[in-house]
């Protein structure tokens, strides 16, 4: 028993008590896990799961420009990423409205241009090691400034989400109802995309620009296998993200692997396990499917 406790302590607790960088990484990961998954849930429900991925690519040139101008400075890189992300989102939205083309095609075009620009900028100035750092993040680099940034972004995200929650929900189901009430759906959409870009830029330090979207989407898509209610989806997605962040960090510490991919892979394993044996729509549920008994209440209507 004592051996077990000692092993658990060595695996789960010691890395955090012994090293300040692990504690900072954990706090950063947990803060991101609070803010990013609710955004992921709404992205998933709006059929925009891949938009997060596109935006993660889109912030790259801004991050790279910050890196080129100010070296490995978190505020400069984050600001650059934020501006680039908002610019791509704004341009994609404008082109889509002007031309009547679907927003995803405009966004795909702009993020590809943006990505190419970003890679070009990084390779002009830095080495491939720097590029890897920007793409995949590093827990070692999280300092107090980074933590403040992540914590502020997470707090602001939760606050704004609470303020626009009802509008977002109604807009997802029936955007015309909202327009009829005089609410501009485009504004809500813009605020939502802005929050997404903020979280992606906050997450790139721990996870890297491309991995940051993983902590947003994978917990959300995993939660879909366990809950059919919005509150359930959001709560579960946050829980899954927190467990993945902690688990991924510990795995990365013990096995000497990069932290970003580790965190996302732990979330990925949760997704695969849920797809196999989750409560709703999983493979196991399909195999075991039983018919629910006939309803006898007065509301059961005969088909027309």
């Amino acid at each position, binding site marked *: 028993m004592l051996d077990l406790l000692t092993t658990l302590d060595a695996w789960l607790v010691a890395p955090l008590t012994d090293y300040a960088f692990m504690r900072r990484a954990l706090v950063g990961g947990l803060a991101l896990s609070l803010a990013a998954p609710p955004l992921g849930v709404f992205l998933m*429900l709006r059929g925009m799961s891949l938009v997060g991925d596109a935006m993660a690519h889109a912030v790259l040139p801004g991050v790279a420009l910050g890196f080129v101008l100010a070296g490995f400075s978190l505020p400069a890189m984050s600001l650059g990423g934020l501006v680039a992300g908002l610019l791509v989102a704004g341009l994609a939205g404008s082109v889509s409205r002007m031309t009547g083309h679907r927003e995803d095609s405009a966004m795909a075009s702009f993020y590809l241009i943006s990505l190419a620009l970003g890679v070009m900028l990084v390779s002009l100035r830095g080495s491939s090691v720097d590029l890897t750092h920007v793409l995949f993040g590093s827990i070692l680099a999280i300092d107090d400034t980074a933590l403040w940034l992540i914590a502020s972004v997470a707090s602001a995200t939760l606050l704004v989400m609470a303020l626009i929650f009802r509008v977002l929900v109604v807009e997802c189901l029936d955007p015309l109802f909202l327009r009829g009430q005089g609410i501009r759906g485009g504004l809500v959409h813009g605020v939502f995309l802005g929050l997404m870009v903020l979280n992606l830029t906050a997450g790139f330090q721990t996870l890297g620009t491309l991995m940051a979207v993983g902590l947003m989407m994978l917990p959300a898509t995993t939660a879909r296998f366990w809950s059919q209610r*919005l509150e359930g989806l959001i709560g579960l997605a946050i829980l899954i993200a927190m467990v993945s962040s902690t688990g991924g960090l510990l795995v990365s510490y013990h096995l000497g692997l990069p932290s970003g991919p580790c965190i996302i892979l732990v979330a990925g394993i949760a997704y695969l396990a849920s797809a196999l044996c989750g409560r709703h729509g999983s493979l196991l549920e399909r195999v075991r499917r039983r018919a629910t008994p006939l309803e006898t209440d*007065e*509301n059961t*209507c005969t088909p027309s």
Partner: protein
Amino acid sequence: MSRLSLETLTLAQGGRTVLENISGTFEDGAITALVGANGAGKSTLIQAIMGLLPPLSGKVSCGVPKERRAWLPQQLALDLTFPMSVEELMLSGCWPTHGTFKRYGPQDYRRMHTIMQRLGLSGLAHRPLGELSGGQRQRALLGRTLMQEAELLLLDEPFANVDTHTVEILCDTLREMASAGATVIVVLHDMEQLAQLANCVLLLAGGHGQWVEPETLLERHHAPARRHAHAPFISLNLPDVPPCSTY
């Protein structure tokens, strides 16, 4: 008395003129059927009345505040995979009074339960929308407009793919809303439903509109309507009938 009128209204969609020089008034407390073949411009007109489509020329004069105008789109327009319950959908009808921030109170829940009972939805409050039948969903959507206390109600083919029980409930509710003073505009394809429900008809064909009495329209189509009570107005052209006398 009328709070909604069209003045030489011309509407276009995607650079193509759909309706030209439509004029007339929709009386308060009346149910107007909007009829016409597919592509005649019924949905375009509804969009213009809702203020979602700016006219090419002419105007829609509407004295009903925006938040009291309700539009029941065809069910296909809704994302039914969204995890929302009947209760949540109906409470969203409180938007005019509650907006984005105000909490729903006990009186809102009481009102919702009364409306649910009236629409035969009791016991379904927590049922996800995706698990409802077409008829139950349509009743829930009408429930939202009742929660909204809509004074102008536009319905786009509300009876498509719903059971007869639902059609009866919807018709009764629409009549009640109209007798309470609401202006109701319904896109209809079915002659029998038109005969039961409409006080007046706005017929759209060939880009033009004509106001006619339902009886006149029914008389003109009496024989085919009897033989094929549910035959849609697929090949309807502007009939040579006198205009609706009350409008």
